[in-house]
């Protein structure tokens, strides 16, 4: 049964993993905001900011973001415009209202002087009770664990699982995905716990739960522990110890190495790239139980992809990084930033070519993937040469669809397990295994 299904799936290319890829592609079109790996990227693009704002639940009546957007054009006007609007929304006594108006004015001023145009929600300017509301908790925890990013990490891990040259094992796949997801939630929560004052000062991250006081630091740490411990335990006991060890190592690397290093040295980008490369390796080891060359290749592809992705993005955030005290290549070594991005775009071409040599894919993969790899390398070259906002944006947005497409192509070009010489032997083996699976 399992064997037949495997045959079918290899032929048609439709498996849960494939679907995951498709979903991922679809979600990328809509949500380009937080992406793909354990790395915490300070993403600010106006477009994305608006999307994320819309995604948040708003308890306030319709406040007309347009109203506020217009205000941002002229600094002085903003202050006057907000004052008449705010009393409508204030149920507070007189004294606090006056204070509120002052806060609102100062908020408007700081808003107006900000470089990014954004629609700040009205509720942001009110005083809020610091009490945990249970009905808000799921949303808060989702934002604390960066759930969208976690979902993308899990899909990279499942890509690694799918590419492993073993018959597809659904329970193992689910356990590995769940474990990876929990580990990612834990890591992201700890990251936010460490970065509260810095997040407050960066445009994109200032609406995080800890910054807004929606949840206490203690609860954040408890949540991280209650995700991380079961997650790693699940990986170690339910999948295999190697995957568990990789998961634990990745959490450590992200929270204790990458997060502090962001403020100390530009080497953080390389550490972060490793963090992003580990999930597919975890997926692979979950399937095979060992660290093969194929796993490292997949990790290498993701490692190389991080650089054009992040370097292009960070190009537009130099002001926020500089003010926030983050040591990023785009600020301190702009030439290096662009060189590295280009270098790794070209490395992607090389790595794709190595794939058939390691029996991960057939020889069709380097050929089919060449157009997209060449395109991203071309954009990388343009970024290298022009070093301006438009080329960095082009490269960034390209990286967003490039990776899912590359992984998709890789999967469809995957070297089938059946193409090995001992076909019959394998058939018997898998069939045996399938029978074993049936038994409870």
């Amino acid at each position, binding site marked *: 049964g399992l064997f037949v299904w495997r045959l079918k799936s290899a032929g048609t290319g439709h498996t849960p993993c494939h679907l995951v890829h498709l979903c991922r592609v679809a979600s990328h079109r809509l949500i380009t905001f937080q992406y793909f790996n354990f790395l915490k990227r300070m993403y600010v693009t106006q477009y994305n900011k608006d999307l994320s704002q819309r995604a948040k639940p708003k308890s306030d009546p319709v406040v007309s973001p347009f109203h506020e957007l217009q205000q941002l054009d002229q600094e002085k006007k903003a202050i006057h415009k907000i004052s008449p609007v705010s009393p409508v929304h204030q149920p*507070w*006594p007189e004294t*606090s209202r006056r204070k509120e108006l002052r*806060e*609102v004015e*100062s*908020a408007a*001023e*700081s808003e107006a*002087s900000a470089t990014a145009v954004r629609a700040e929600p009205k509720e*942001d*300017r*009110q*005083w*809020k*009770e*610091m*009490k945990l509301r249970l009905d808000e908790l799921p949303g808060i925890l989702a934002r604390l664990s960066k759930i969208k990013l976690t979902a993308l990490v899990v899909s990279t891990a499942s890509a690694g699982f799918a590419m492993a040259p073993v018959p597809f094992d659904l329970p193992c796949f689910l356990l590995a995905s769940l474990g990876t997801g929990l580990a990612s939630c834990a890591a992201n929560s700890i990251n936010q*716990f*460490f970065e*509260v*004052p810095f997040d*407050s*000062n960066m445009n994109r991250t*200032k609406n995080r739960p800890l*910054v*807004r*006081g929606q949840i*206490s*630091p*203690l609860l954040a*740490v408890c949540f991280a522990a209650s995700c991380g411990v079961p997650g790693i335990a699940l990986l170690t006991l339910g999948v295999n110890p190697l995957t568990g060890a990789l998961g634990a190592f990745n959490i450590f690397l992200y929270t204790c190495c990458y997060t*502090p290093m962001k*403020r*100390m040295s530009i080497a953080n980008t390389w550490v972060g790239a490793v963090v992003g490369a580990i999930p597919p390796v975890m997926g692979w080891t979950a399937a095979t139980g060992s660290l093969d060359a194929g796993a490292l290749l997949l990790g290498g592809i993701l490692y190389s992809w991080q650089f054009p992705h992040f370097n292009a993005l960070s190009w*537009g955030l*130099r*002001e926020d*990084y*500089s*003010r926030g*005290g983050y*040591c990023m290549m785009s*600020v*301190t070594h*702009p030439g290096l930033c662009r060189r590295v991005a280009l270098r790794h775009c070209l490395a992607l071409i090389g790595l794709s070519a190595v794939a058939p040599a390691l029996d991960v894919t057939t020889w069709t993969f380097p050929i089919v993937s060449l157009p997209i790899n060449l395109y991203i390398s071309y954009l990388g070259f343009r970024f290298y040469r022009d*070093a*301006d*906002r438009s080329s960095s944006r082009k490269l960034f947005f390209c990286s967003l669809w490039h990776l899912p497409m590359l992984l998709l192509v890789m999967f469809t070009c995957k070297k089938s397990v059946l193409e090995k010489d001992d076909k019959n032997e394998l058939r018997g083996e898998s069939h045996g295994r399938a029978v074993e699976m049936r038994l409870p």
Partner: protein
Amino acid sequence: PPAQSHSDWIGPPDKHSNLRPVIFYVPPEESPLERRLREARQENQACNQHFWARHNRAFRQEKEEFIYSRLKAKGLEMRDETGQKATLNAEEMADFYKDFLSKNFRKHMQYNRDWYKRNFTITFLMGQVALARALRWLRWKKKNVE
């Protein structure tokens, strides 16, 4: 915040530091542990506020000075004919960003160390307070049952 509230209140971001101020609730029977926690949080808030307000103000000021000096070197005024504020493009600002970051590096290192220490202390105290409260509640429950 209303007078009869029993919890802390958090406000909108401060103009200079971008941090949200918190008004702490002082319960009538505050234990020494709870007082230590509240004072630690207040101290943390004050330190953060002081650092970031000063830092952001310095940033804004130095940015203005940089823009002014660069415009002057180019022979332009701060505001052009239409009255709009003249700005430099991102490439020209890049020099300033790089400079500012390296100048403030040591300041950031010091602040990071302090922040991490304070953050851990506060969270640990929160844990202790939560535990103490839980034990107190259990004891009260037991007394009521008897």
